[in-house]
């Protein structure tokens, strides 16, 4: 399990290099083939018992920002990469660019506010403070176009793991574990670590086109919603109840046969699972399914709280059960 290492790396959409290099280093000796495609997706292959192909896909990118301008006082204007709620970013520590310059997303102190305490700042009003006072000083450290990533140390507390970017380093870690576990794969198995999912499923399609698998399973980390303010009918998933299996999400109804096969496998092996209750939001499954002549796809997710913010939480039992379920699925032939 590499949750700690993976969640402490910066890899916002379009800037996945550090994550890719880390994963490559962990798996390169355990796979029969590894390559990086032109968009930056990392594709690893392990042979199975048949020539039929299955593709597993986890996106490497996390939501973050890009530096869009440097102001006269040296503060950085930023634009979001992926869906970020401005309420959750003020007062947070960030890392800017390849040189990993530390910064802070500040906001005016409560003393300077009147009625605006309860109105969150707009993205246009947010600046990154990197501790300089002049534009020229800032320009010595960062450039327009540098990424801005949340900078958070992870922690383990009992069954819980907290850190940033669990969406989707959780999925990446599961795939690395599967590769290193050396299970008896049924299919010729392709592990794809995709780029730019958070910007609109941009990376996975070209990998699917290259591999042309018979089936695909997307491994993602999905929103939970087990906050006390939500009645249980409105929760998407709940932590501690096992991997979440999706019947439909934005832009795609999951292949019915794969959906049932996954549920039957979980039941047959007494692995706890839950059916994801919400259909909002999408995954790479939509892109993969509509590639070439069509690739039946499914989605299995680790539930996590507070995703797309600087701190998210998952349950380690859920992680282990997700890993178990996918490991078992990969030893079997898809039952249609």
């Amino acid at each position: 399990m590499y949750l700690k290492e993976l969640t402490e790396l910066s890899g916002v959409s379009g800037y996945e290099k550090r994550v890719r290099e880390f994963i490559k280093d962990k798996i390169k000796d355990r796979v029969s083939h590894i390559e990086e495609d032109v968009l930056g997706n990392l594709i690893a292959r392990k042979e199975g018992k048949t020539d039929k192909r299955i593709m597993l896909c986890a996106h490497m990118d996390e939501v973050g920002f890009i530096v869009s301008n440097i102001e006269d006082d040296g503060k950085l204007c930023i634009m979001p990469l992926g869906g970020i709620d401005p309420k959750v970013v003020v007062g947070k520590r960030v890392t800017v660019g390849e040189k990993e310059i530390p910064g802070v997303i500040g906001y005016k102190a409560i003393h300077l506010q009147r009625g605006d305490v309860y109105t969150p700042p707009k993205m246009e009003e947010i600046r990154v403070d990197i501790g300089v006072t002049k534009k020229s000083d800032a320009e010595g450290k960062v450039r327009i176009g540098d990424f801005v990533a949340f900078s958070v140390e992870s922690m383990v507390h009992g069954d819980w793991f907290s850190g940033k970017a669990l969406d989707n380093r959780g999925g990446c870690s599961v795939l690395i574990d599967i590769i290193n576990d050396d299970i008896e794969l049924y299919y010729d198995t392709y592990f794809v670590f995709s780029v730019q999912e958070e910007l609109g499923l941009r990376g996975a399609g070209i990998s699917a086109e290259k591999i042309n698998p018979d089936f695909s399973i997307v491994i993602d980390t999905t929103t939970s919603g087990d906050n006390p303010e939500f009645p249980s009918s409105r929760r998407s998933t709940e932590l501690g109840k096992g991997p979440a299996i999706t019947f439909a999400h934005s832009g795609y109804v999951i292949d019915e046969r794969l959906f049932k096969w996954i549920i039957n496998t979980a039941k047959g092996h007494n692995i706890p699972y839950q059916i994801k209750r919400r259909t909002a939001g999408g995954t790479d499954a939509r892109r993969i399914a509509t590639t070439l002549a069509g690739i039946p796809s499914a989605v299995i997710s680790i539930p996590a709280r507070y995703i797309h913010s600087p701190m998210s939480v998952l349950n380690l039992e859920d992680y282990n059960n997700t890993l178990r379920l996918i490991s078992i699925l990969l030893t079997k032939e898809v039952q249609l």
Partner: protein
Amino acid sequence: MKELIKKLTETNSPSGRESNIREVILKELDGYIDGYEVDRLGNLVVWKRGKTDKKILLDAHMDEIGVVASYIDDKGFIRIEPVGGVSPYNLMGGRILFLDVGIKGVIGVEGETNSDLQKNLKELNFDKVFVDIGARTKEEAERLVPVGTFGVYSAEFVDLGKRLVSKAMDDRIGCAVLIEAIKRSDPYHTLYGTFSVQEEMGLVGASVVAFNINPEMAIALDVTAWSDTPKGYKRMSIELGKGPCIKIKDSASISDRRVVDKLRNIAEANNIPYQIEILIFGGTNAAALQRTSAGIVSGTLSIPCRYVHSPCEMIDIDDAENAVKLLNALVEDSSI
């Protein structure tokens, strides 16, 4: 043709659950086609050989909008999520039919006070509605309608003479027109009919259905909006009974001029009434067909339909008959 329309619209098959309608269509075409294939996403592809190997593709999507059970509470009330563009207002006073077991349920709205209820009705969304299948316990509801069960509007077919009403005119009327066109025509070029899946989820089936066909021309057959009701859309000109509509554009695609000109010329030459359509919103499978592989010359022929996406979609049988005549003339023509 009315009988066919009745049969097709009374078959319940929302997006992602098209096996029922696929069987009905295949049975209907028995003896009229030279072959068929069900592709990996579930699209039904049929063909009827002509005098040349050049191909013309006509597409109608076979899915309809629907709902899916997402949560069952302690008392056995079922929460639902939309499958495709379902307005919660269209659920009011109606019934839902859950597939497989054929269980019907009625719709309720949350409200702890009268003003609460009025407010919820005013700002209705899927969080505020639930389905009551008359279950006395949670266990009973879970047995009859397990989470992940798909449903459709429960609304009967109504024959009003020239005008016909159904929950699924979108796009079973397109399927009916395509079936009749295949049955009645003696195509000059090879005719491909595609009955595609998951259009309502975002053109899923049509994104891949033509990938291995490579036709000279593709035409999507779908419903369009209307402007001939009290205070109907005044920026458009589409009336029921004035003929099928040759689409110029909608929000998703601009019809290829060659398709538009060809349809118009054939309609004029054969004295078939037609309308010219500019739809100020919406889209059809033409958008996906057009962008398949290296591109396909594509357009849309529409059937005017009132109250689209409601349980009571209304069409005029003459428009459907004239669409079949127009398509017959098109596929029997030697020029492309």
